[in-house]
């Protein structure tokens, strides 16, 4: 009976081991550049485009690949590409760069096809992906260069794309492929060496008293024509065209008649060159006027200071600049130069760039083919607005130094207070995803998760049904948007200020919000803006644990905070212990007492300190009473009482002994770095320990935890014989446990960092094994 109980415990612990990571990965040997994703909710699929392959993954578990199809470059194509000077292993492959759903059964797919862009149709039938093999010319839809940014959107089966038309990348185009193909003019005042980032449609014809048309918005960066800089200056732009645009009858033939562009402003407090847009996410709203575009900006590549910002823009603010703002016009200066100034003359009627609306239809203009030439000539020569589009709140929502931000998605989360909060998931250039939310102008970064082992950029992010999907050069990761169960106390749960999480008082756990019933809401504690944890019920005090001090040994006392935002302080007999020194080495989850002596005996207290809105919340996580060994008679008694823990320790030490030298070396290295940090008063990121040690660490903690529980469960002395048998059972179970953890481990690691969006630094968890006290 008792044996069965122990096995049950181990199984539960294994489950915890799995659930701690929550991340699922997908990658296939020899396949790279997972940069294109299409979510097919109707099929329960994440369609994934990579280099020379397309996968249909289970959207609930991306480690399950339902189907795969290869789209390789022919040998002839590769030779042709190589002969044109491109790299055979880097450039001359087929990178899938576009996946769009056309209708219920067909998707449209484009790849670079060794610098000769090609498109095709792909279907998913009877559990099989299938390329139709039509091989359409993809020029103007898909870039030649697999590493050149481009964007596209499918609207009513018309494809809008923004990319380069030619091999050299010198002919940018915004193209609509439809019965009437439209494109931008080859004119530097329209597009001047652009870098296309994003485009999407806004259904502005809905609920429009003026009978307005839907708009397609494009986001890109380009060389500014309106500034007189010696060097080229890159600025960020938003542009717009009308969905119903058919081109002009005699002017702007087969060209956009509604193309307008404006500068996007995302200014940081200190003076700097304009920030350059890198990604956009469109938060759609049922009422389109409330739609918001969130955008990542980074400092100019010529800047030495690497920093990133996130700004948000109301679609109505963008629309107003185009619909009501002034235009810029060029005037000749001296002989060979031009300058762009505000156009102050009268505007032709209808207004340049306007879509066909009721007023236009009334005056006989039923399509862009009827627009008068004065308007068309105006828009052809003056596509740039005078005003910039300014962000909501007038400044960035998030500012961050260090590794650049690359991609973002935003989830609108309804919290207990009934308000919706935009939760930002921001991918970085070194493989992390940050979870950030803005409360009344204050940016709160809840956590930062390392998704990819090697420091490679997050190339694509998608959000669907509380799951985040991230792609990079080497693989794809799926993870839930929140991990509320990680917060084991009310204090941790509330101080995390995660809108997904609320403390469920009756259930005594941190639960995913929203609750299923209205009644349950009243029992949920959440304080997002204030981080007020005083609502938490007072918890029972932690009972001290007794540990034996063996002279000369190194003693490790565990204390692991659940919250990444907490800072851990150790006290001895009520006095705070200094940061790491020769005697004490303080880690994220433990303190190591070196070369224990009689003076080290006493009560050790581990306290976590968390700050929110200027308030400090403390929580005692662990208390240890460290006692020196006593007389023989007492020793015998203690030995009898603590027999099981001692034996467990011996077993653990024995098992790990062969690994001691590497651990010792790593310990030395860590100690050295710790000292360096102390001297330099700077925080350094430390690389994660190797996979083996991590797994050993995971294996190591289990018996310790188990051992910790034994005294509570035991109800008397056990015969020595029975005790030894129990020990054997533990040993037999360990290999299996370790193996299971290995198979499910995704190397997901959570690190803590400071509030206020400071650069992401922190001590990564790393494993070490030292001598335990021995009797």
């Amino acid at each position: 009976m008792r044996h069965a109980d122990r096995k049950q415990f181990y199984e539960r612990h294994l489950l915890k081991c799995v659930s701690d990571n929550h991340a699922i990965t997908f990658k296939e040997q020899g396949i790279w550049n997972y940069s294109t994703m299409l979510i097919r909710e109707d099929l329960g699929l994440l369609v994934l485009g990579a280099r020379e392959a397309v996968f249909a993954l289970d959207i609930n578990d991306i480690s399950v690949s339902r189907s795969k199809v290869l789209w390789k470059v022919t040998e002839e194509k590769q030779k042709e590409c190589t002969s044109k000077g491109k790299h055979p292993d880097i450039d001359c492959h087929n990178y899938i760069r576009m996946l769009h759903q056309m209708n219920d059964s067909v998707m449209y797919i484009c790849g670079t096809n060794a610098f000769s862009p090609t498109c095709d149709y792909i279907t998913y039938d009877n559990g099989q992906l299938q390329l139709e093999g039509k091989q359409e010319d993809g020029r103007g839809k898909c870039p030649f260069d697999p590493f050149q940014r481009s964007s596209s959107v499918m609207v009513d089966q018309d494809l809008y794309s923004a990319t380069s038309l030619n091999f050299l990348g010198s002919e940018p185009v915004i193209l609509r492929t439809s019965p009437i193909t439209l494109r931008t003019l080859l004119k530097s005042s329209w597009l001047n060496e652009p870098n296309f980032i994003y485009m999407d449609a806004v259904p502005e014809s809905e609920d429009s008293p003026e009978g307005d048309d839907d708009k397609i918005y494009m986001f890109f960066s380009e060389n500014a024509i309106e500034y007189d800089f010696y060097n080229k200056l890159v600025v960020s732009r938003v542009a717009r065209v009308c969905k119903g645009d058919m081109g002009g009858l005699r002017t702007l033939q087969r060209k956009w008649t509604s193309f307008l562009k404006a500068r996007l402003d995302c200014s940081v407090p200190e003076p700097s060159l304009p920030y350059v847009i890198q990604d956009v996410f469109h938060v759609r709203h049922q009422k389109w006027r409330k739609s918001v575009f969130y955008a990542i900006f980074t400092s100019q590549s010529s800047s030495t200071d690497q920093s990133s910002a996130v700004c948000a823009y109301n679609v109505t603010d963008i629309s107003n600049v185009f619909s009501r703002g002034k235009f810029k016009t060029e005037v000749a200066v001296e002989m060979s130069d031009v300058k762009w100034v505000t156009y102050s003359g009268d505007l032709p009627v209808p207004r340049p760039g306007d879509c066909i609306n009721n007023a236009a239809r009334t005056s006989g203009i039923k399509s862009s083919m009827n627009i008068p030439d004065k308007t068309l000539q105006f828009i052809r020569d003056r596509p740039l607005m005078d005003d910039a589009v300014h962000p909501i709140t007038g400044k960035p929502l998030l500012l961050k130094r260090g590794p650049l931000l690359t991609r973002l998605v935003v989830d609108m989360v309804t919290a207990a207070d009934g308000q919706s909060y935009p939760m930002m998931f921001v991918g970085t250039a070194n493989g992390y995803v940050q979870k950030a939310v803005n409360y009344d102008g204050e940016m709160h970064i809840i956590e930062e998760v390392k998704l990819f082992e090697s420091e490679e950029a997050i190339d694509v992010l998608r959000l669907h049904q509380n799951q985040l999907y991230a792609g990079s050069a080497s693989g794809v990761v799926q993870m839930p948007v929140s991990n509320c169960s990680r917060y084991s106390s009310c204090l941790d749960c509330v101080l995390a200020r995660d809108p997904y999480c609320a403390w469920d008082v009756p259930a005594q756990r941190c639960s995913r919000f929203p609750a299923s019933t209205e009644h349950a809401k009243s029992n949920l504690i959440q304080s997002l803006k204030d981080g007020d944890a005083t609502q938490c019920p007072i918890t029972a005090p932690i009972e001290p644990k007794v540990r034996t001090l063996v002279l000369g040994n190194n003693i490790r006392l565990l204390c692991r905070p659940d919250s990444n935002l907490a800072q851990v302080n150790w006290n001895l007999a009520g006095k705070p212990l200094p940061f790491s020194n020769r005697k004490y080495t303080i880690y994220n989850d433990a303190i190591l007492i070196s070369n224990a002596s009689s003076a080290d005996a006493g009560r050790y207290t581990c306290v976590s300190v968390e700050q929110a809105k200027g308030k400090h919340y403390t929580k005692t996580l662990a208390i240890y009473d460290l006692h020196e060994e006593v007389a023989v008679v007492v020793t015998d008694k203690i030995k009898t009482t603590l027999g099981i823990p001692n034996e467990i320790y011996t077993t653990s030490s024995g098992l790990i002994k062969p690994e001691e030298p590497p651990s010792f070396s790593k310990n030395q290295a860590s100690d050295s770095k710790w000292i360096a940090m102390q001297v330099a008063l700077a925080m350094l990121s430390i690389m994660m320990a190797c996979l083996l040690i991590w797994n050993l660490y995971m294996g190591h903690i289990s018996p310790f935890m188990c051992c910790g529980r034994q005294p509570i469960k035991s109800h008397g002395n056990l015969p020595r014989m029975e005790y030894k048998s129990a020990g054997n059972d533990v040993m037999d179970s360990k290999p299996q446990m370790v193996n299971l953890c290995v198979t499910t481990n995704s190397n997901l690691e959570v690190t803590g960092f400071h509030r206020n969006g400071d650069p992401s630094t922190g001590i990564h968890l790393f494993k070490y094994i030292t001598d335990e006290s021995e009797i």
Partner: protein
Amino acid sequence: DDAQKQFSSPTIINNVVQDPQTGRIYLGAVNGIFQLNHNLQEESRADTGPKKDNPQCTPPITAKCTDAKEMDNFNKLLLVNSANGTLIVCGSLFRGICSLVNLNSVNKPVYYSDTKGEKTWVASTEESVTVVGVISYFKDTTTNANLSVFLVGKGYGSSDSSKLISTRLLQEHGEMDVFENMVEASTVQTSSFVHRYLHDFRYTFKDNGYIYFLFSRSPGTSDSRRITFIARLCENDHHYYSYTELQLNCTVNTEQQENTFNKVQAAYLAKPGKVLAQNIVPSNLNDKVLFGVFSADEADGRSALCMYPLSSINARFEEVIESCYTGEVLEDDKPKTVYSPYNSKNEAICRTKRDKNMVKAYICGAEFLPSPLASKPEYALAVKPIYTGNDMLTAVAVAVENEHTVAFLGTSGADVLKVHLDPNHTDFYNRIPEEHTEGAVNKNLLFDTGLDHLYITTGRKISKVPVQVCGQKNDCRSCLVQRDPYCGWCVREGRCTRKKNCHKGEGENVWLWGPDQACKILEPIKIQACIPDQTPSNGTTTPPSGGL
């Protein structure tokens, strides 16, 4: 037969072309097109203007164009398309659109449309903007059919087509209209930068699968001094990948990078006579030579004639192109021989190292090769003038007579100078004066089909003038002293004639030409005649005044 013939137009003549098959002359004048026979007798005419227009309005002109007024129609381009019997007429009205008329009767329209919009705006609305064109072909990649097209070179105009070079359809093809632009290429069609270069096109021709444009332009930097370029394009290049410009220098001192005569005014492509060819193209006597008349920026009005062998032009083109394609760069990774004009993208072109043999396979460029290219000034093709003068030269035509090369040079003063292009002793020997001065000689100097007459256009008048006036020389000395390649002394007939007009002229000492010594063989005969009172004349006989 040698009687002077002429035709007067009611308006200024802009362009003159000739149908080489029929010898007919076509005049493109202001507000009118005239068809003349080889004797300049009018056969047909068509009015092209004036008409109500405003350059700011998009044709067709309707009541909505509130500022329309009667405007003259300058002829900007006139091309003979013998293949299908049409004349291409492009004017300055209606944004520079073109029309087709019947080659046998210009008053019969073949095609005209002012409703097709900007894609069919070919020429320019501005009088000062020059336009040139040449007929070519365009192979349709889908049907493999050869489409009839013409290529146009046009300077910048603010109200017309923004294309520096364009390829225009001459037949209906699928959904495309006549005169529609067929090549959408950013290399030479990016208007934002073209206007600062101020292209002035003067000449265009085809040769051996290439199309050449001759123009002057400013460098596009703060320096406004104009430079002459010849641009070369492969025929049937669908993307203008092959478009390359080569700077041409006409300078007294070819060692330094001085460029004395920097603006081309007119040009003519011809094979020189053997005497000249042996001197300038000794290895290829059949080579064609581009003869260009150049003017200088200085106010003194000096002008020059320079010769560029076509083989030298092509060799230099190949040199600079190959240097770029094979990746020859300087220390700062900039190209050694070329730069990329009309292109805001300043990335380092010509950096990729390629094999020479591979490069030869792409003489017409490719999508992955840098384009457009222009030679750096250091790699200009520089030649010394073969003739300089104080008259502003505005036209040139070249003929060959008895292996000697004669250049006819039109001036701004309406004269035509005859220059014998002798490599050892070039000088102009005769002047064809204009009776009534009315503007400069039009750059289109043409010969009749037999090369016996020259068509000279000045202002409103076109005249047919003999290339020689030998009959006005009455004695051997005055006949030979001018070293006119056309005129020699016909001994048997005792008169000054062209060689072909001297009976049995091929025999030795039958038709005399050359230094004065040639006449001496006649003197013993005179002595034997026993005319004791006669003595040889020592002075040059003045040609009779009012000769034309």
